[in-house]
């Protein structure tokens, strides 16, 4: 169940969003992706790992190379649609709780 939240954490990072954009049009190797960033290669690898774990990226074996490409199916899942809706209510209820705790202490 934590997977859903992680998807939105994954796209909250600017580098990871840029990676998603890069592979949106073509499959790329980790090296080719890393070449687009100033950050160290292991950092890019870490981002790729997170995106793959969240199933936003898919790995595909092509001879000796591993290509990364977008996993469009994942965003279509109803669960993903619900998460921002849930978050909206979570924020609202957190506020309610905070307001009432403050109200209680004033009484």
């Amino acid at each position, binding site marked *: 169940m934590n997977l859903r939240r992680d998807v939105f954490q994954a796209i909250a990072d600017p580098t990871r969003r840029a990676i998603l954009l890069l592979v949106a049009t073509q499959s790329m190797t980790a090296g080719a992706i890393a070449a687009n960033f100033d950050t160290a290669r292991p950092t890019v690898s870490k981002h790729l790992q997170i995106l793959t774990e969240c199933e936003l990226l898919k790995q595909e074996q092509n001879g000796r190379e591993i290509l990364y490409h977008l996993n469009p199916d994942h965003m279509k899942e109803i669960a993903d649609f619900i998460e921002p*809706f*849930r978050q*909206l209510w979570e924020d609202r209820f957190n506020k309610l709780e905070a307001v009432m705790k403050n109200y*209680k202490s004033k009484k």
Partner: protein
Amino acid sequence: MERKTKINALDGKQELTITREFDLPLDLLFTAYVEAEILEQWMGTKVLKLESKKHGSYQFETTDPKGNKHGFSGVIHELILNKRIIRTFEMEGTPFGVQLEIYDFEQLTADTSKLSMHVIYESVTLRDRILQLPFAQGINMAHNRIQDILYKLNNRS
């Protein structure tokens, strides 16, 4: 981060449930729903009218960052102190229809309570569209940021 708020929206149904446990005594949780000035604070809306009683009605109004006003309203079918509220809810001037909301308030311990909301929409399609509203807004924002990043990347090379 704890996942306190649970949404249960089964595929193909025109209803959903929202449940949440609060670190608040039952009467305080209930008060948050019936006192206009408190509701204003946590809902971030202006309360034009709130008659917290059976056959009462309510009207809220929010102003978006562009200054546009949005109205929300409904009627209260039942209100049992510290137990239950049944009301209708409508976003005025939108194609989302009217929804029926059943709120059940429950005491867990002396200091904790639980709210269960059962919301019924006019159709499956309307329910799904309302569920997707915050998603669409989020994606739109993320998309704008992606465009900014892409623009910077393009200009760097």
